[in-house]
């Protein structure tokens, strides 16, 4: 008598949305828990899926170092805008879906010990669109970075300006860029990281203006929507149009960085571009300053012993001492004697 096994073949319709995600790159069904472990990068094809602001905080910044600022900023409805749904209802729906107040969060944090002001955008909140709140957060982050002379990092994920706020959202382009110009004049570095997507008014303002522009692989980065471009010229667009690699080819992005390397890459860049007037890091100094802080020394040693083995890139090994204790090394930078002098950003 043949044994009858129940069928375990998955049927496509039955994937619960909260358990599985279909990779937009290769179409594979990915288990969400697994996807979170791989930083939402598809293990099959390497496609970088979109990531929430909170997941960015967890992965990019030193643990526990993020201190949010201006978390209470909330959008209002200056035009009384109603399309198929009133704008205030859209805001509330987005807040419920994401747990965020608006499409960006900003604060101070450390990245491998280097203190930064950082803005993280979240595409899940109304397509990451920039209204007055996002513009205000970017401007305040830039002004605070200037006041405290710490580098600014903005991680963009946005379809562009928020239509529901009309020209007031268009004015955010000028508001944010004006603040960044002051940062540049004062020689405080700004690193722009463009993730999928960075388009429209966000790309045509702060995202394009980094001292250094980084992009995630295959991220959609462009001014006009691809459909608009295709419609305008009534022709096929070149393959890879408006993707990160296209931007790299045409000279508007410095580097394409995979998500797993973004943190160490940012840390490495931040050691080169430092706010004018802030001492350059002294690579030999790390041990000395750690000696004066016994706990830091211990954790640094532990980190080295654990850290050196799985560190194929030479960079990671070299970085180990500095990354041992974020608070301590952040401190060290602030209090280090200005012997190297400022380097031009």
């Amino acid at each position, binding site marked *: 008598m043949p044994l009858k096994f129940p069928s375990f073949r998955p049927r496509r319709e039955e994937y619960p949305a909260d358990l599985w995600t279909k990779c937009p790159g290769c179409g594979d069904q990915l288990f969400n828990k697994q996807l979170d472990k791989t930083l939402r990068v598809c293990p099959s094809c390497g496609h970088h899926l979109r990531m929430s602001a909170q997941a960015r905080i967890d992965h990019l910044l030193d643990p526990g170092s993020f201190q949010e600022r201006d978390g209470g900023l909330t959008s209002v409805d200056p035009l009384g805008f109603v399309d198929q749904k009133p704008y205030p209802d859209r805001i509330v729906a987005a807040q419920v879906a994401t747990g965020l107040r608006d499409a960006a969060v900003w604060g101070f944090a450390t990245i491998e010990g280097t203190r930064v002001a950082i803005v993280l955008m979240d595409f899940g909140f109304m397509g990451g669109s920039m209204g007055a709140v996002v513009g205000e957060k970017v401007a305040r982050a830039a002004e605070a970075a200037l006041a405290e002379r710490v580098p600014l990092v903005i991680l963009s994920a946005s379809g562009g300006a928020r239509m529901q706020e009309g020209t*007031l959202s*268009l004015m955010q382009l*000028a508001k944010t860029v004006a603040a960044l110009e002051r940062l540049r004049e004062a020689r405080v570095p700004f690193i722009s990281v463009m993730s999928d997507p960075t388009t429209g008014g966000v790309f045509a303002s702060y995202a394009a203006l980094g001292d250094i522009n980084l992009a995630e692989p295959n991220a959609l980065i462009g001014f006009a929507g691809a459909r608009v471009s295709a419609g305008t010229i009534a022709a096929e667009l070149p393959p890879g149009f408006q993707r990160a690699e296209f931007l790299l080819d045409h000279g508007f992005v410095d580097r394409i960085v995979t998500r797993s390397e973004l943190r160490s890459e940012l840390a490495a860049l931040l050691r080169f571009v430092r706010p004018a007037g802030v001492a350059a890091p002294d690579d030999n100094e790390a041990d000395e300053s750690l000696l004066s802080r016994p706990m830091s020394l211990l954790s640094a040693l532990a980190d080295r012993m654990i850290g050196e083995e799985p560190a194929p890139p030479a960079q990671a090994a070299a970085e180990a001492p500095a990354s041992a204790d974020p608070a301590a090394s952040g401190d060290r930078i602030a209090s280090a004697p200005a012997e190297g002098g400022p380097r031009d950003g």
Partner: protein
Amino acid sequence: MVDRLLGRGREPGHQAAPVPEAAAEDPRAAVWSRVQLARNIRRPRTLELLDAMTDEFIELHGDRLFADDAAIVAGLTRIDGVRFVVVGHQKGADTDENIRRNFGMPNPEGYRKGMRVMELAERYGLPVLTLIDTPGAFPGPGAEERGVAEAIARSIGLMSRLRTPIVTVITGEGGSGGALAIAVGDVVIAFENAVYSVISPEGCASILWRTADEAATAALAMRMSAADQLALGVVDRIVDEPGEGAHTDHVETGRRLRPVVAEALAALAAIPVDELVEARYQRYRAFGPYTEAPRPTPPSVERGGIAGRLRGILDAGRSLGVPVAGERKRGAEDAQEPEGV
């Protein structure tokens, strides 16, 4: 100080703009008739207006990098004894010219030419006048390849810190970033039938209403008429047009704009440049309302018993007014279409 000097607002005695009678009842039709007037093919552009309102014009060409973009004209001009630099969009007056001028949709070269000439103005102490009339920056593949977004961002940045007075006039269509790129001014003036918007009404309608047929509805919702922009503070002053609109009389339109520009330039010239640049920064810094509630701290969840702990968790969520981050819907990041522009 700038406000006082410039007497911001409508001139006294300003009449409600004439709108076609059928449209007078329906606000949608009223705003749509303005959009049509702003787009009228016979509407005076930068060159026609300069011809009618200035005493001299010497055009300057090229961005020194790649090409000369005919969708933006730039040059040196004069009203009486006041010499200044002008940068403005130029649409065509017929199909042939429109093709040559790309329907007033600049490529990156246009903005880079504008920046070059504005830097020249700063260097030689000349104020700047910009005239805005574009459906938007050109969205073609060539423009993307050569970095139109970067050119717009740089141009906005340059204007935000340019150490010389800038007067901006929205003369026709103020189309999104392609308009703002040369519209960051100390004073922003608009013709009464000009429009200004973050996206074209057709584009807005096709995204939010899923059909371009709702363009008039979108135009109304975005409050893109000059009068609405004045109320929002994006525009400082409105200049009336002659008769049925600027297209009916280029000379008279220029004659009306001339004293307004001259007056603004004179007022700005009296302001020390540091104050001027700071006031310009603050003008744009202040745009966009929001509320700022201190984020409530969730109450401590440490209460006795499992019921107490549950209540603590629930109350914490309630007091935040939004669900905790963990409740975020899976796949939301990827399912959504971009809502911005």
